[in-house]
């Protein structure tokens, strides 16, 4: 099982969500990802529950298990001289180094870009931080909540009369991790062609600004602010999330030529009236349209409503919970989930590849997340050639 990126070597100093999602994509595509973790506690996300084992929580947190599949774990105290020296040895043969410390941390450790570049001129260094490596806010503290808000996404999410709202999943961090993978791949291609590595700077707050799309454009073009619209699509009606018999569904009324189907599906002739035929008309009479649709929606279940719309060519959807996702016939038919066994967490169904290249090799390689320091001795002795005695002394000194 070689994977599409077999042979690429990544050193991963990153923690939490953003960097680890980037390196998860590398690792599951077959690159060798060495995850450097501080001795004792490791990546702080190991402390995030729920835990599959309360007694070995550090090995069994849900997000840790998910984000670190196919990686190797090496514990290393990179605040110690010996730790830095070992890391520099690894850098010599690496293609990419990913880190998401606050800006200046790497310099303070003696691992600034210039130092790394001197050791390995072809190395790509990918830095992810809250606000980027430059600018007046570069040292600001921030969590997902803060960054999602500063990047402009929060202001446009939520009810018009309610407060701005954050999305439930840590999407600003994960989204930055996705883009970090694209950026790192771009730089890797260039480095392999030219011999020149470089430093990439990604800001989580800027991820939000990059996907604002309509909200920013509307203001930029017309001076008119885009605001919160709750569950109704902006400037649309019969377009959003509605309650139904056993949960919630997404009703998508367009395109106009398909609208009459809604009247048929919902058995309400009134919905076929001329005044609702166009997007503009539905917007004008949005509350009437909702009132006409609601009885049928409440009488029916989410999956049936979804399929009824789809069978009539309408892009209906439903609000899936985790159980729905695990049971979804489409995902099962496509063998999306990957069963992975873990000595402490047991066997779980892992969401599989985000994208499916059909190749004559296995594009993706899934192995369970590593135990803390599971690969330390291997990498330090086998890869770097330190003696077993040296390794034992590193361990005695708390370096590994």
């Amino acid at each position: 099982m070689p994977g599409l990126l077999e042979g690429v070597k990544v050193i991963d100093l990153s923690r939490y969500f953003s960097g680890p999602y980037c390196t998860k994509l590398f690792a599951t595509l077959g690159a060798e990802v060495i995850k450097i973790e501080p001795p004792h506690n490791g990546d702080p996300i190991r402390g995030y529950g729920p835990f599959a084992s309360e007694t070995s929580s550090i090995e069994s947190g849900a997000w840790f298990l998910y984000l670190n599949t196919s990686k190797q774990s090496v514990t290393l105290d990179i605040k110690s001289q010996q730790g830095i020296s070992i890391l520099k040895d690894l850098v010599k043969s690496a293609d990419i180094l990913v880190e998401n410390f606050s800006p200046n941390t790497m310099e303070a450790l003696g691992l600034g870009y210039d130092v790394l570049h001197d050791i390995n001129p072809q190395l790509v260094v990918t830095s992810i931080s809250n606000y980027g490596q430059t600018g007046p806010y570069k040292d600001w503290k921030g969590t997902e909540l803060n960054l999602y808000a500063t990047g402009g996404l929060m202001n446009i999410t939520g009810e018009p009369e309610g407060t701005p709202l954050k999305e439930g999943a840590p999407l600003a961090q994960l989204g930055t991790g996705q883009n970090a993978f694209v950026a790192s791949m771009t730089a890797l291609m260039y480095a392999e062609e030219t011999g020149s590595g470089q430093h990439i700077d990604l800001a989580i707050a800027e991820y939000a600004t990059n996907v604002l799309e309509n909200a920013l454009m509307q203001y930029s073009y017309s001076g008119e602010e885009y605001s919160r619209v709750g569950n109704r699509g902006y400037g649309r009606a019969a377009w959003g999330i509605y309650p139904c018999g056993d949960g919630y569904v997404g009703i998508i009324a367009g395109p106009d030529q398909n609208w009459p189907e809604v009247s048929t599906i919902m058995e309400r002739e009134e919905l076929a009236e001329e005044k609702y035929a166009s997007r503009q008309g539905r917007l004008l009479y949005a509350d009437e349209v909702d009132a006409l649709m609601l009885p049928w929606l409440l009488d029916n279940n989410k999956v049936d409503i979804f399929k009824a719309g789809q069978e009539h060519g309408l892009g209906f959807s439903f609000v899936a919970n985790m159980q729905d996702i695990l049971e979804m016939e489409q995902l099962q038919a496509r063998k999306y989930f990957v069963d992975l066994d873990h000595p402490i967490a047991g066997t779980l169904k892992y969401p599989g590849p985000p994208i499916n290249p059909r190749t004559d090799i296995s594009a993706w390689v899934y192995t369970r997340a590593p135990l803390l320091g599971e690969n330390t001795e291997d990498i330090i002795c086998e890869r770097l050639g330190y003696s077993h005695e040296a390794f034992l002394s590193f361990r005695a000194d708390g370096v590994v």
Partner: protein
Amino acid sequence: MENTQPLKNYRILDLSRIWAGPYCTKLMADMGAQVIKMESLRVYDSHRGPVTPAPGIAAYPDAEPGDEPWNRNGWFNCLHMSKYGISLELTEEPGRNVFEELVSISDVVVENFRQGSLERLGYDYEKLKSIRPDIIYVSMPAFGNSGPWKGYVAYGIGQEQLCGMAHMTGYENDGPMKSGINHGDPITGSHAAGLVLAALRYRRKTGKGMFVDVSQQESAVSLIGGEVISYQISGAEPERIGNHSPYFAPHNIYPCSGDDRWVTIAVTNESEWQNLVNVIGDPTLHSNDAFANNDQRMQHQTELDTLISNWTISQEMYDIVHRLQEAGVPSGPVLRGPDLLEDPHFSERNTFNNVNHPQVGPKWYPGFAWKMSLTPGQVHWPAPTLGQHNHTVYNEFLGLTDSEITKLEETGVIGTKPTGSRII
């Protein structure tokens, strides 16, 4: 300007529309890839908006659609900078010949039509491969190219729901809420761009192209996969908790002076809590048992939120944030459109690009998704008007003569004016 960017050697034939596909190729065009955006005059990219839009739509400059509204829509123009814009009717025989020639000079073909649409026109992977043996063909329908739902359609707004994101987004004790954007789209776009690069690298090593099957739904579930693991471990569905955190308190949004102005504050440890109390300047909070530790604060969140709101409500948003950041408390302003463009941090980092489009004038757009020290992103030209680069691509890239191009124009196979448009 000479293109010295990292992806300059790659040519992508981009048939994708709306946002997911165009975001994928935007990320690559920003890094120098030659992206040829191909549209039909009958069914152009619906992000260009209607042929005759109702007046007053704010996606147009000063809400004026103008004579050629399809060239003046901000939602389209922000996603297609530095791409070559061509038109071509794939249903016409001469159009098919030209298309096959375009495939033969491209490294990658990207499409996000309804599943099977291109295949019905005779263009499946095997066919494209026969034209260009090492082609990388990226097909990104809503649910992928196999399975019982493969013919179903879904937009970004639906993907947020089908992947579980909407389920866990919402106010406490209230229903699910969509995001302010169609978040499924850029998620798939970025995943696809990454995979295209991995496929190009694999091809460079092996000479082999491939078919890349994208299910937009799987792409979105994969991004938040930790939640699916959490559910299997705990048996509990994620709860909707507004802006609170399952781990820390206080963690919320608080009103500031002015209309619809807010600040976010997220305390993640004891020292940040002590620092917050010091900034608030109410020493009794230090000794209040209800807030003595994180567990206590989690239990008394309502009381805590009221107390902090009473402190923030009369103060200016940026002012609070600066004081909190000086004290080391994670916080940030809730920025709106005008704030983003005026914010000193984003200004200094050139987070937004000002680009002069011939039919729009200079406007602000989202910038590059990352900064590169050696080969920074570049805007080579604004989003193309419909068919703007027909001559460049058909003549310079494909080698068609002027008279051949004129004939294609006269027979309506290519052109620069829409001949009808279905939009959603």
